[in-house]
Protein backbone atom coordinates (compact mmCIF):
# COMPACT_ATOMS: atom_id res chain seq x y z
CA UNK A 1 0.00 0.00 0.00
CA UNK A 2 1.22 3.47 -0.83
CA UNK A 3 1.76 5.81 2.09
CA UNK A 4 -0.75 8.31 0.70
CA UNK A 5 -3.45 5.67 0.62
CA UNK A 6 -2.60 4.67 4.15
CA UNK A 7 -2.94 8.28 5.18
CA UNK A 8 -6.27 8.58 3.43
CA UNK A 9 -7.48 5.42 5.12
CA UNK A 10 -6.43 6.77 8.48
CA UNK A 11 -8.19 10.04 7.88
CA UNK A 12 -11.41 8.27 6.92
CA UNK A 13 -11.19 6.20 10.06
CA UNK A 14 -10.59 9.33 12.15
CA UNK A 15 -13.48 11.14 10.54
CA UNK A 16 -15.89 8.32 11.16
CA UNK A 17 -14.73 8.15 14.78
CA UNK A 18 -15.24 11.83 15.32
CA UNK A 19 -18.67 11.66 13.70
CA UNK A 20 -19.49 8.79 16.00
CA UNK A 21 -18.25 10.77 18.99
CA UNK A 22 -20.26 13.75 17.86
CA UNK A 23 -23.35 11.60 17.80
CA UNK A 24 -22.56 10.32 21.29
CA UNK A 25 -22.37 13.84 22.66
CA UNK A 26 -25.45 14.89 20.80
CA UNK A 27 -27.61 11.95 21.72
CA UNK A 28 -29.13 14.01 24.50
CA UNK A 29 -29.38 17.16 22.47
CA UNK A 30 -33.16 16.95 22.30
CA UNK A 31 -33.26 17.47 26.08
CA UNK A 32 -30.09 19.50 26.59
CA UNK A 33 -31.04 22.17 24.09
CA UNK A 34 -33.33 23.35 26.86
CA UNK A 35 -31.90 21.82 30.04
CA UNK A 36 -28.30 22.92 29.49
CA UNK A 37 -29.07 26.61 29.14
CA UNK A 38 -30.36 29.44 31.23
CA UNK A 39 -33.03 30.11 28.61
CA UNK A 40 -35.01 27.87 26.33
CA UNK A 41 -37.31 28.37 23.38
CA UNK A 42 -40.41 26.55 22.41
CA UNK A 43 -42.98 26.86 19.66
CA UNK A 44 -46.32 28.18 20.78
CA UNK A 45 -48.60 26.48 18.26
CA UNK A 46 -51.61 28.59 19.16
CA UNK A 47 -49.87 31.89 18.44
CA UNK A 48 -47.63 30.36 15.81
CA UNK A 49 -44.57 31.96 17.25
CA UNK A 50 -41.43 30.98 19.13
CA UNK A 51 -41.33 31.95 22.78
CA UNK A 52 -38.17 32.39 24.85
CA UNK A 53 -38.26 31.75 28.57
CA UNK A 54 -35.81 31.25 31.39
CA UNK A 55 -35.02 27.82 32.80
CA UNK A 56 -35.04 27.68 36.56
CA UNK A 57 -31.60 26.87 37.85
CA UNK A 58 -32.38 23.60 39.59
CA UNK A 59 -33.68 22.17 36.32
CA UNK A 60 -30.40 22.98 34.60
CA UNK A 61 -27.79 20.36 33.86
CA UNK A 62 -24.03 20.90 33.63
CA UNK A 63 -23.25 19.03 30.42
CA UNK A 64 -19.53 18.69 31.10
CA UNK A 65 -20.04 17.27 34.58
CA UNK A 66 -22.75 15.03 33.13
CA UNK A 67 -20.38 13.54 30.57
CA UNK A 68 -17.69 12.94 33.18
CA UNK A 69 -20.11 11.32 35.58
CA UNK A 70 -20.49 7.58 36.09
CA UNK A 71 -23.67 7.58 34.07
CA UNK A 72 -22.47 10.01 31.44
CA UNK A 73 -23.01 7.56 28.59
CA UNK A 74 -26.70 7.26 29.43
CA UNK A 75 -29.48 8.74 27.40
CA UNK A 76 -31.68 10.98 29.51
CA UNK A 77 -34.56 8.71 28.66
CA UNK A 78 -32.75 5.68 30.10
CA UNK A 79 -33.79 7.01 33.46
CA UNK A 80 -36.55 9.44 32.55
CA UNK A 81 -39.70 8.56 30.67
CA UNK A 82 -39.44 8.93 26.88
CA UNK A 83 -42.58 11.02 27.17
CA UNK A 84 -40.33 13.90 28.19
CA UNK A 85 -39.53 14.24 24.49
CA UNK A 86 -42.68 16.31 24.19
CA UNK A 87 -42.95 19.80 25.53
CA UNK A 88 -44.71 21.02 27.60
CA UNK A 89 -44.02 17.89 29.61
CA UNK A 90 -47.15 16.10 30.58
CA UNK A 91 -48.28 16.81 34.14
CA UNK A 92 -48.53 13.23 35.28
CA UNK A 93 -44.82 12.73 34.58
CA UNK A 94 -44.30 14.40 37.93
CA UNK A 95 -45.68 11.28 39.56
CA UNK A 96 -43.10 9.13 37.77
CA UNK A 97 -41.32 6.74 40.08
CA UNK A 98 -37.55 7.09 39.71
CA UNK A 99 -35.15 4.17 39.76
CA UNK A 100 -33.12 3.62 42.87
CA UNK A 101 -29.41 2.77 42.57
CA UNK A 102 -30.00 -0.81 43.52
CA UNK A 103 -32.71 -1.32 40.90
CA UNK A 104 -29.80 -1.46 38.50
CA UNK A 105 -26.79 -2.30 40.64
CA UNK A 106 -27.97 -4.84 43.23
CA UNK A 107 -26.59 -8.31 42.75
CA UNK A 108 -24.51 -7.35 39.73
CA UNK A 109 -21.10 -9.00 40.19
CA UNK A 110 -19.48 -6.31 38.08
CA UNK A 111 -20.14 -3.80 40.85
CA UNK A 112 -19.43 -6.13 43.75
CA UNK A 113 -16.40 -4.10 44.80
CA UNK A 114 -18.67 -1.14 45.53
CA UNK A 115 -20.79 -3.16 47.99
CA UNK A 116 -24.10 -1.56 46.96
CA UNK A 117 -26.17 -3.79 49.25
CA UNK A 118 -24.03 -3.05 52.28
CA UNK A 119 -24.19 0.67 51.50
CA UNK A 120 -27.95 0.53 51.31
CA UNK A 121 -28.11 -1.13 54.73
CA UNK A 122 -25.77 1.49 56.15
CA UNK A 123 -27.93 4.20 54.63
CA UNK A 124 -31.01 2.85 56.44
CA UNK A 125 -29.11 3.25 59.71
CA UNK A 126 -28.14 6.81 58.94
CA UNK A 127 -29.55 9.74 60.84
CA UNK A 128 -30.69 11.45 57.61
CA UNK A 129 -32.80 8.51 56.48
CA UNK A 130 -34.34 8.05 59.90
CA UNK A 131 -35.31 11.70 60.27
CA UNK A 132 -37.00 11.88 56.85
CA UNK A 133 -37.41 8.36 55.51
CA UNK A 134 -39.62 9.36 52.60
CA UNK A 135 -37.68 12.27 51.24
CA UNK A 136 -34.06 11.30 51.79
CA UNK A 137 -32.76 8.93 49.13
CA UNK A 138 -29.46 7.99 47.57
CA UNK A 139 -30.10 10.68 44.97
CA UNK A 140 -30.14 13.34 47.71
CA UNK A 141 -26.39 13.05 47.90
CA UNK A 142 -25.63 11.42 44.59
CA UNK A 143 -26.65 14.02 42.07
CA UNK A 144 -27.98 11.84 39.23
CA UNK A 145 -26.37 14.05 36.62
CA UNK A 146 -22.92 14.60 38.10
CA UNK A 147 -22.01 11.81 40.52
CA UNK A 148 -18.66 10.13 39.91
CA UNK A 149 -16.42 7.84 41.98
CA UNK A 150 -14.11 10.68 42.92
CA UNK A 151 -12.41 8.90 45.82
CA UNK A 152 -11.19 6.22 43.43
CA UNK A 153 -10.35 8.23 40.37
CA UNK A 154 -9.18 11.49 41.99
CA UNK A 155 -5.49 12.28 41.65
CA UNK A 156 -5.25 14.56 44.63
CA UNK A 157 -6.76 13.99 48.03
CA UNK A 158 -7.67 17.66 48.28
CA UNK A 159 -9.90 17.30 45.21
CA UNK A 160 -11.67 14.35 46.76
CA UNK A 161 -12.15 16.29 49.96
CA UNK A 162 -13.75 19.20 48.16
CA UNK A 163 -15.88 16.92 45.96
CA UNK A 164 -17.21 15.00 48.93
CA UNK A 165 -17.70 18.04 51.11
CA UNK A 166 -19.63 19.78 48.37
CA UNK A 167 -22.09 16.91 48.55
CA UNK A 168 -22.82 17.72 52.19
CA UNK A 169 -22.68 21.45 51.55
CA UNK A 170 -25.25 21.17 48.77
CA UNK A 171 -27.73 21.11 51.66
CA UNK A 172 -25.74 22.36 54.61
CA UNK A 173 -24.73 25.54 52.84
CA UNK A 174 -27.90 25.93 50.78
CA UNK A 175 -31.23 26.34 52.56
CA UNK A 176 -33.32 25.83 49.46
CA UNK A 177 -32.37 22.16 49.25
CA UNK A 178 -32.19 21.71 53.01
CA UNK A 179 -35.67 22.96 53.72
CA UNK A 180 -37.19 20.44 51.32
CA UNK A 181 -36.33 17.77 53.84
CA UNK A 182 -37.09 19.17 57.25
CA UNK A 183 -39.04 21.69 59.27
CA UNK A 184 -36.04 22.21 61.47
CA UNK A 185 -34.35 25.58 61.43
CA UNK A 186 -31.31 25.82 59.20
CA UNK A 187 -28.08 24.70 60.81
CA UNK A 188 -25.20 27.12 60.61
CA UNK A 189 -22.26 24.79 60.31
CA UNK A 190 -19.65 27.52 60.63
CA UNK A 191 -21.06 28.20 64.08
CA UNK A 192 -21.44 24.56 65.08
CA UNK A 193 -17.77 23.98 64.32
CA UNK A 194 -16.35 27.01 66.07
CA UNK A 195 -14.58 24.71 68.49
CA UNK A 196 -12.43 23.39 65.65
CA UNK A 197 -9.30 25.54 65.27
CA UNK A 198 -8.13 26.36 61.74
CA UNK A 199 -11.65 25.59 60.61
CA UNK A 200 -11.05 26.61 57.02
CA UNK A 201 -7.93 24.47 56.75
CA UNK A 202 -9.72 21.52 58.27
CA UNK A 203 -12.71 21.79 55.96
CA UNK A 204 -10.34 21.88 53.01
CA UNK A 205 -8.28 18.92 54.11
CA UNK A 206 -10.64 16.64 55.87
CA UNK A 207 -14.07 15.38 54.88
CA UNK A 208 -17.25 15.95 56.81
CA UNK A 209 -17.81 12.19 56.75
CA UNK A 210 -14.52 11.62 58.59
CA UNK A 211 -16.09 12.96 61.75
CA UNK A 212 -19.75 12.28 61.06
CA UNK A 213 -19.85 8.66 59.97
CA UNK A 214 -19.09 5.39 61.64
CA UNK A 215 -15.90 3.85 60.32
CA UNK A 216 -16.49 0.76 58.27
CA UNK A 217 -14.00 -1.98 57.50
CA UNK A 218 -15.60 -3.21 54.33
CA UNK A 219 -16.77 0.03 52.73
CA UNK A 220 -14.46 2.58 51.20
CA UNK A 221 -16.99 5.30 51.97
CA UNK A 222 -18.87 4.75 55.18
CA UNK A 223 -22.56 5.68 54.77
CA UNK A 224 -23.84 5.73 58.34
CA UNK A 225 -24.10 9.47 59.05
CA UNK A 226 -24.61 9.65 62.80
CA UNK A 227 -26.48 12.15 64.97
CA UNK A 228 -24.32 15.03 66.05
CA UNK A 229 -23.70 13.70 69.57
CA UNK A 230 -21.74 10.82 68.10
CA UNK A 231 -19.54 12.96 65.87
CA UNK A 232 -15.81 12.79 66.41
CA UNK A 233 -14.47 15.62 68.47
CA UNK A 234 -11.17 14.32 69.82
CA UNK A 235 -8.27 15.85 68.00
CA UNK A 236 -6.20 12.74 68.58
CA UNK A 237 -8.44 10.50 66.54
CA UNK A 238 -6.72 12.12 63.57
CA UNK A 239 -3.68 13.73 65.15
CA UNK A 240 -1.96 10.61 66.43
CA UNK A 241 0.06 7.70 65.12
CA UNK A 242 -2.94 5.45 64.51
CA UNK A 243 -4.85 8.18 62.79
CA UNK A 244 -8.45 7.54 61.89
CA UNK A 245 -7.66 9.06 58.51
CA UNK A 246 -5.58 6.06 57.50
CA UNK A 247 -8.75 3.99 57.59
CA UNK A 248 -10.88 6.49 55.71
CA UNK A 249 -9.65 9.43 53.69
CA UNK A 250 -6.22 8.05 52.91
CA UNK A 251 -7.30 4.45 52.73
CA UNK A 252 -7.77 4.04 49.01
CA UNK A 253 -4.57 5.88 48.17
CA UNK A 254 -2.57 4.02 50.76
CA UNK A 255 -3.89 0.67 49.58
CA UNK A 256 -2.91 1.61 46.05
CA UNK A 257 0.52 2.90 46.97
CA UNK A 258 1.22 0.01 49.28
CA UNK A 259 0.78 -2.24 46.28
CA UNK A 260 3.53 -0.23 44.66
CA UNK A 261 6.07 0.75 47.26
CA UNK A 262 5.11 -1.10 50.41
CA UNK A 263 5.41 2.08 52.40
CA UNK A 264 2.29 2.63 54.42
CA UNK A 265 2.63 6.28 55.16
CA UNK A 266 3.55 7.19 51.59
CA UNK A 267 0.30 8.97 50.87
CA UNK A 268 0.16 11.18 53.87
CA UNK A 269 3.77 12.00 53.41
CA UNK A 270 3.38 13.60 50.01
CA UNK A 271 -0.09 15.02 50.00
CA UNK A 272 -0.60 16.67 53.32
CA UNK A 273 0.73 17.06 56.79
CA UNK A 274 -1.35 16.01 59.74
CA UNK A 275 0.40 16.96 62.97
CA UNK A 276 0.93 13.89 65.09
CA UNK A 277 0.11 11.42 62.32
CA UNK A 278 3.04 12.04 60.03
CA UNK A 279 6.02 10.35 61.47
CA UNK A 280 9.07 9.62 59.54
CA UNK A 281 10.68 6.55 61.04
CA UNK A 282 14.18 7.48 59.90
CA UNK A 283 14.03 11.06 61.14
CA UNK A 284 12.76 9.77 64.47
CA UNK A 285 15.62 7.32 64.85
CA UNK A 286 18.12 9.95 63.75
CA UNK A 287 16.87 12.48 66.28
CA UNK A 288 16.98 9.95 69.13
CA UNK A 289 20.54 8.99 68.18
CA UNK A 290 21.72 12.60 68.01
CA UNK A 291 20.02 13.43 71.26
CA UNK A 292 21.58 10.37 72.89
CA UNK A 293 25.05 11.37 71.70
CA UNK A 294 24.63 14.84 73.16
CA UNK A 295 23.58 13.39 76.51
CA UNK A 296 26.51 10.99 76.51
CA UNK A 297 28.85 13.88 75.70
CA UNK A 298 27.50 15.97 78.56
CA UNK A 299 27.68 13.00 80.91
CA UNK A 300 31.30 12.19 80.07
CA UNK A 301 32.29 15.81 80.44
CA UNK A 302 30.65 15.93 83.85
CA UNK A 303 32.52 12.80 84.96
CA UNK A 304 35.81 14.36 83.92
CA UNK A 305 34.96 17.56 85.75
CA UNK A 306 34.20 15.66 88.93
CA UNK A 307 37.40 13.64 88.88
CA UNK A 308 39.71 16.35 87.64
CA UNK A 309 38.45 19.02 90.00
CA UNK A 310 40.44 17.67 92.94
Amino acid sequence: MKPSKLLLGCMCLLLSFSLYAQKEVNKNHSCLKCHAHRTYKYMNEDFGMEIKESMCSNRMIDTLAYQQSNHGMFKCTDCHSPEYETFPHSGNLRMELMYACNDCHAGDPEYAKFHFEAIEEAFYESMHYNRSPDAFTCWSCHNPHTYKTQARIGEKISETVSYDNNICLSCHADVSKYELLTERENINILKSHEWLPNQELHFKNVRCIECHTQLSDSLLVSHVVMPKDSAIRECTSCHSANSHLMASLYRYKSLESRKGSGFLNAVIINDSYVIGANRNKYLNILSVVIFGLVLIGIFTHTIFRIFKSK
Partner: protein
Amino acid sequence: MANEKLYLYPLWIRIWHWLNAALFIILLLTGISMQYSNPENPFLISFELSVQLHNICGIALSINYLLFIFGNLFTSNGKQYKMKTKGLFKRLYDQSVFYLFGMFKKQDPPFPISLENKFNPLQRFIYSTAMYIGFPIIIASGMAMLFPEIIIPQLFGVSGLLVTALLHAIIGFVLSLFLFIHIYVCTIGNSIISNFRSMITGWH
Protein backbone atom coordinates in the same frame (compact mmCIF):
# COMPACT_ATOMS: atom_id res chain seq x y z
CA MET B 1 40.52 36.34 84.95
CA ALA B 2 39.62 39.75 86.21
CA ASN B 3 38.63 39.85 89.83
CA GLU B 4 36.55 43.01 89.83
CA LYS B 5 32.90 42.52 88.99
CA LEU B 6 31.65 43.17 85.49
CA TYR B 7 28.13 44.32 84.69
CA LEU B 8 27.53 42.07 81.69
CA TYR B 9 23.79 41.56 81.45
CA PRO B 10 21.69 44.73 81.34
CA LEU B 11 18.19 44.49 82.71
CA TRP B 12 16.46 44.28 79.35
CA ILE B 13 18.55 41.28 78.27
CA ARG B 14 17.80 39.54 81.54
CA ILE B 15 14.08 40.11 81.13
CA TRP B 16 14.28 38.97 77.53
CA HIS B 17 16.32 35.96 78.49
CA TRP B 18 14.12 34.53 81.20
CA LEU B 19 10.93 35.18 79.31
CA ASN B 20 12.53 33.52 76.32
CA ALA B 21 13.66 30.55 78.39
CA ALA B 22 10.23 30.00 79.95
CA LEU B 23 8.38 30.35 76.64
CA PHE B 24 10.90 28.16 74.85
CA ILE B 25 10.50 25.36 77.36
CA ILE B 26 6.70 25.47 77.09
CA LEU B 27 7.01 25.44 73.31
CA LEU B 28 9.34 22.48 73.48
CA LEU B 29 7.06 20.44 75.74
CA THR B 30 3.88 21.23 73.79
CA GLY B 31 5.69 20.73 70.47
CA ILE B 32 6.77 17.25 71.53
CA SER B 33 3.26 16.53 72.77
CA MET B 34 1.85 17.33 69.34
CA GLN B 35 4.53 15.59 67.31
CA TYR B 36 4.21 12.40 69.33
CA SER B 37 0.52 12.91 70.08
CA ASN B 38 -0.88 9.88 71.81
CA PRO B 39 -3.90 10.11 74.11
CA GLU B 40 -2.69 7.12 76.12
CA ASN B 41 0.65 8.61 77.10
CA PRO B 42 0.27 10.27 80.54
CA PHE B 43 3.46 12.32 80.16
CA LEU B 44 2.22 14.26 77.17
CA ILE B 45 0.08 17.37 77.35
CA SER B 46 -3.33 16.88 75.72
CA PHE B 47 -3.36 17.74 72.03
CA GLU B 48 -6.00 20.42 72.28
CA LEU B 49 -4.24 22.22 75.12
CA SER B 50 -0.89 21.82 73.38
CA VAL B 51 -2.18 23.50 70.23
CA GLN B 52 -3.49 26.45 72.22
CA LEU B 53 -0.41 26.84 74.42
CA HIS B 54 1.93 26.42 71.48
CA ASN B 55 0.12 29.11 69.51
CA ILE B 56 0.07 31.59 72.39
CA CYS B 57 3.66 31.00 73.45
CA GLY B 58 4.86 31.05 69.85
CA ILE B 59 3.39 34.51 69.33
CA ALA B 60 4.72 35.70 72.70
CA LEU B 61 8.20 34.39 71.90
CA SER B 62 8.15 36.15 68.53
CA ILE B 63 7.26 39.47 70.15
CA ASN B 64 9.92 38.89 72.77
CA TYR B 65 12.36 38.21 69.93
CA LEU B 66 11.69 41.72 68.66
CA LEU B 67 12.93 42.99 72.04
CA PHE B 68 16.13 41.04 71.49
CA ILE B 69 16.55 42.36 67.94
CA PHE B 70 15.85 46.00 68.82
CA GLY B 71 17.88 45.81 72.01
CA ASN B 72 20.88 44.56 70.11
CA LEU B 73 20.30 47.04 67.31
CA PHE B 74 20.26 50.08 69.57
CA THR B 75 22.61 49.16 72.42
CA SER B 76 26.22 48.09 72.50
CA ASN B 77 25.16 44.55 73.37
CA GLY B 78 24.74 43.91 69.63
CA LYS B 79 28.49 44.02 69.13
CA GLN B 80 28.87 40.86 71.18
CA TYR B 81 27.21 38.89 68.40
CA LYS B 82 29.45 40.11 65.59
CA MET B 83 32.30 37.88 64.45
CA LYS B 84 35.27 38.38 62.18
CA THR B 85 35.52 35.50 59.75
CA LYS B 86 39.28 35.77 59.70
CA GLY B 87 40.75 33.24 62.12
CA LEU B 88 37.28 32.23 63.25
CA PHE B 89 37.97 28.57 62.82
CA LYS B 90 41.20 28.78 64.80
CA ARG B 91 39.45 30.61 67.66
CA LEU B 92 36.62 28.07 67.76
CA TYR B 93 39.19 25.29 67.74
CA ASP B 94 41.19 26.81 70.58
CA GLN B 95 38.09 27.26 72.71
CA SER B 96 36.94 23.70 72.01
CA VAL B 97 40.33 22.33 72.96
CA PHE B 98 40.04 24.28 76.21
CA TYR B 99 36.61 22.77 77.00
CA LEU B 100 37.78 19.27 76.08
CA PHE B 101 41.25 19.23 77.62
CA GLY B 102 42.54 22.56 78.86
CA MET B 103 40.01 23.10 81.63
CA PHE B 104 40.87 19.71 83.14
CA LYS B 105 44.53 20.67 83.21
CA LYS B 106 43.61 23.81 85.12
CA GLN B 107 44.76 26.00 82.22
CA ASP B 108 43.48 29.56 81.98
CA PRO B 109 40.70 30.13 79.48
CA PRO B 110 42.18 31.26 76.13
CA PHE B 111 39.64 34.09 75.83
CA PRO B 112 38.95 35.61 79.25
CA ILE B 113 35.69 37.40 79.81
CA SER B 114 35.78 41.19 79.50
CA LEU B 115 33.27 43.95 78.90
CA GLU B 116 34.11 43.91 75.19
CA ASN B 117 34.10 40.12 74.97
CA LYS B 118 31.53 38.72 77.33
CA PHE B 119 31.27 35.57 75.21
CA ASN B 120 34.11 33.27 74.30
CA PRO B 121 34.34 32.55 70.54
CA LEU B 122 32.36 29.33 70.78
CA GLN B 123 29.55 31.03 72.70
CA ARG B 124 29.61 33.94 70.32
CA PHE B 125 29.34 31.65 67.33
CA ILE B 126 26.62 29.44 68.77
CA TYR B 127 24.54 32.29 70.23
CA SER B 128 24.69 34.21 66.94
CA THR B 129 23.73 31.16 64.90
CA ALA B 130 20.86 30.28 67.21
CA MET B 131 19.56 33.83 67.50
CA TYR B 132 20.09 35.15 63.97
CA ILE B 133 19.58 31.99 61.88
CA GLY B 134 17.67 29.47 64.00
CA PHE B 135 15.15 31.88 65.48
CA PRO B 136 14.15 33.63 62.25
CA ILE B 137 13.54 30.28 60.55
CA ILE B 138 11.55 28.78 63.38
CA ILE B 139 9.48 31.95 63.82
CA ALA B 140 8.80 32.31 60.10
CA SER B 141 7.81 28.66 59.65
CA GLY B 142 5.69 28.80 62.78
CA MET B 143 3.87 31.91 61.58
CA ALA B 144 3.32 30.23 58.23
CA MET B 145 1.60 27.33 59.93
CA LEU B 146 -0.51 29.69 61.98
CA PHE B 147 -1.65 31.36 58.76
CA PRO B 148 -1.52 28.45 56.32
CA GLU B 149 -3.01 30.48 53.49
CA ILE B 150 0.40 32.13 52.98
CA ILE B 151 2.11 28.80 52.33
CA ILE B 152 2.82 27.74 48.77
CA PRO B 153 0.52 24.73 48.40
CA GLN B 154 2.95 22.62 46.42
CA LEU B 155 6.73 22.58 46.48
CA PHE B 156 8.47 20.15 44.12
CA GLY B 157 5.37 17.99 44.15
CA VAL B 158 5.24 17.82 47.92
CA SER B 159 2.74 19.61 50.15
CA GLY B 160 4.07 23.04 51.13
CA LEU B 161 2.66 22.59 54.61
CA LEU B 162 4.65 19.39 54.94
CA VAL B 163 7.92 21.12 54.00
CA THR B 164 7.20 23.99 56.39
CA ALA B 165 6.27 21.66 59.22
CA LEU B 166 9.34 19.52 58.67
CA LEU B 167 11.61 22.57 58.68
CA HIS B 168 9.91 23.84 61.83
CA ALA B 169 10.37 20.50 63.61
CA ILE B 170 14.00 20.12 62.54
CA ILE B 171 15.02 23.62 63.65
CA GLY B 172 13.03 23.09 66.85
CA PHE B 173 15.01 19.94 67.46
CA VAL B 174 18.33 21.66 66.81
CA LEU B 175 17.41 24.55 69.13
CA SER B 176 16.42 22.11 71.85
CA LEU B 177 19.86 20.50 71.54
CA PHE B 178 21.26 24.00 71.87
CA LEU B 179 19.22 24.44 75.04
CA PHE B 180 20.64 21.33 76.69
CA ILE B 181 24.21 22.15 75.73
CA HIS B 182 23.69 25.80 76.67
CA ILE B 183 22.45 24.99 80.15
CA TYR B 184 25.24 22.51 80.67
CA VAL B 185 27.97 24.86 79.50
CA CYS B 186 26.55 27.56 81.80
CA THR B 187 27.40 25.32 84.74
CA ILE B 188 31.05 25.77 83.80
CA GLY B 189 31.85 28.92 85.70
CA ASN B 190 33.51 29.99 88.87
CA SER B 191 31.04 27.73 90.57
CA ILE B 192 28.25 25.64 89.12
CA ILE B 193 25.64 28.29 89.75
CA SER B 194 27.66 31.45 89.30
CA ASN B 195 26.65 31.98 85.66
CA PHE B 196 22.99 31.53 86.48
CA ARG B 197 23.34 34.02 89.28
CA SER B 198 24.94 36.47 86.82
CA MET B 199 22.03 36.14 84.47
CA ILE B 200 19.72 37.07 87.34
CA THR B 201 21.73 39.91 88.92
CA GLY B 202 23.54 41.10 85.79
CA TRP B 203 26.93 41.08 87.52
CA HIS B 204 29.61 38.65 86.58
